[in-house]
């Protein structure tokens, strides 16, 4: 009897693949989180748990949300630049100054912002769920809120502790 063996190029185990997917960036993030987490360790804060959250985790849902946000980005970009739209401290965006929106776009600005916020809310929820800890949604949101501000271009507006700030 001829026996054909299936020498499939074995994929590494799921855990291995997740580790390699996250890569060096993940190590940096984990290290950063670990340092901060150690400061809070004594308090038993839930943030300690979030230290292990993989923010780069990918699922079909997360990919779909990111694609949707990327497709929308060129439409919002001029409004970030003009200051019409700013980044809020809870990881969303808001119409900061509607009068800075050209009249022809003014009718669509609210639906644009609400569609973006719906995606952002889903993104935080999906990342927390994909990490197996839906209760981490709040921490994921806060971390992203900081990231959006860090990534914001100079001249964009974001919500600081005491109101809108121009970067």
């Amino acid at each position: 009897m001829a026996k054909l063996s299936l020498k499939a190029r074995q994929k590494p185990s799921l855990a291995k693949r997740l580790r390699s997917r996250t890569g060096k960036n993940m190590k940096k993030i984990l290290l950063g989180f670990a340092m901060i987490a150690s400061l809070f360790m004594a308090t038993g804060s839930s943030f300690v748990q979030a230290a292990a959250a993989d923010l780069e985790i990918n699922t079909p849902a997360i990919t779909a949300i990111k694609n949707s946000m990327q497709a929308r980005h060129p439409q919002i970009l001029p409004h970030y630049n003009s200051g019409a739209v700013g980044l809020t401290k809870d990881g969303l965006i808001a119409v900061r100054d509607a009068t800075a929106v050209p009249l022809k776009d003014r009718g669509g600005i609210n639906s644009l912002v609400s569609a973006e916020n719906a995606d952002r809310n889903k993104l935080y929820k999906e990342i927390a769920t994909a990490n197996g800890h839906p209760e981490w949604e709040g921490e994921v949101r806060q971390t992203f809120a900081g990231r959006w501000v860090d990534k914001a271009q100079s001249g964009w507006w974001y919500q600081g502790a005491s109101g809108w700030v121009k970067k």
Partner: protein
Amino acid sequence: MPPSARNALFALLAIIAVPAYAISSIHISVGEVDAPAGQLKNARFQVDLKGAEPTLKLSAELKPGNEKTFTAFNLNCGTFLNTRIGELDCLNGVFAAKQINVPLTAHFKSYPGDFSVNIDFMQASFSDATGIHAGEKLTGKVILAARKQADVWHWSGVFNWTDGELYWQPFYFGKAGNSFAIGGTFKAPMLQIREANLLVNEVGSMSASAHINTQTKKVEDVKVVAKEVDFAGLYSLVLKPMVEKSAFGNLKVSGKADWQFEMKNLQPTSFELNLKNAHVEDLKGKFELNDINAHIPWDYDVPQTVELSYSQGHVLNMPLGNTRLQAELNRYSVTAPSLVLPVLDGALKFEDVSAAYLNQQWFWHLKMQLQPISMNQFSQTLGWPEMQGKVDGQVPLITYANKQLSMDGAMQFNMFNGSVRMYDLRIDDPLGTVPRLYANLEMRDIDLGDLTRTFNFGAIEGKLEGDVKDLRLESWKPVHMDAIIQTADGKHRKKVSQRAVENITALGGEGTAAALQRTFLRFFKEFNYEKIGLSCQLRQDVCKMGGVESTPTGYVIVKGKGVPTVTVNGYTEYVSLTDLLARIKRITDSNSKMIVK
């Protein structure tokens, strides 16, 4: 100043005369005026007579009755003329306030029982604080006039502009050349708008009438009629802002439309939209309909019959034939016992259709029957490998509520001489960014000969059956299932070609496909088999693989029978689904020439 004004304080009336017999300027300051229409404070009125022409400078703070804060404004007139008693001219003037700048020339006339104002504005810009009412670079004219006859005021107004743009939430008037003319009567407390005509550039004209009770501030009766307007203009101006978030918010349309609606006490009471030879195309390519003729009446109290027809079109690339539809519109619900949409050489028949719009959400249910469609045309249309035979099927009751679509009973499609059944179907948020589908699938008696020829996998003769339990798709990608597909037992012909064996082997990984060629088995074109099967327990992207039998080191995918016998064993227990699908695609794609029999 109205008779009811109180607390009026004339703080200073200074008349400075140099030389003693000539007046060079007039200053009037008013501390505060309180009237039912609003409040005025810090008013300063200065007429300068020193130059060749008198000039006016007026500044004050105004708070209309319905506002909470005072707004400062200035009116400067480069030339301020008072040629007749009761008439004033402001030439080269500018009216300015926060977010308002209106260069203007105005003529005011005020006699007892006769009042008019005629303003030409140039490159004017204005906006309210929230920006929901705004105009930019507007050039045009406003004429307002009122005359009292007996105890009724007859009034009229014209507002038109030849340049600039206007946004009045939710409407945007981008093309200049619009004109708004309005006229009526006023006898306290009723304001009658007898006729309001709005001529919108590139749309057409609309007319409206209304009754407004100024005491209760109730709009008691409104009627708007628009005949033979351009559908593209009507869509972008009126309909698009209303359906912005729906599937109809991103359309390219053309054709003519008649449109009218009536409101009583701010509640819509009737509506009618008629479309003539219209064309509607979704800009994302999801659907397109040609030669649409529609009669869409709606009445709050009386159920109406909607009629819609189109000559052809497509939905998700699926061609639609000449169609006539009829449904009943009853307040906020639409029902139809049967709707037939010709599709290719068959039809999609919807039965027991019912939809309702409540609390800004759609709820609907329907049954569906797919009348036989040639797989040949169907597969070509979708760009799939060419298939033979016909597909038909039945979909039991589908319900959509709270952004969730669910199906009672099983959906069955007949294809490849067998059947595919789907049951326990539920889709959460089907139109959202992350739709989630839950279902179970069952395949029975699928003719493997037809199937493998279609997908050019290498011939396998036999019957295929399969079960996919707890299937879960996330954004239409599988993330969970317990699936098994295998050949059916029975006394039918069971043959597998050499190429099919190679392809099955290749599914497990490249490198092993040539193994067959290195043995004497390469001289045989086909082999008998007892069973072929694969199973996958999918969790996220990782599939735990299995076959028709387990072995100490793996599982059997092809269990041969007779002599010569071919057996394909699998050793890889965990496989990435992405990789597995990529391999299947490579196998079917590499055989670029389709074999169709």
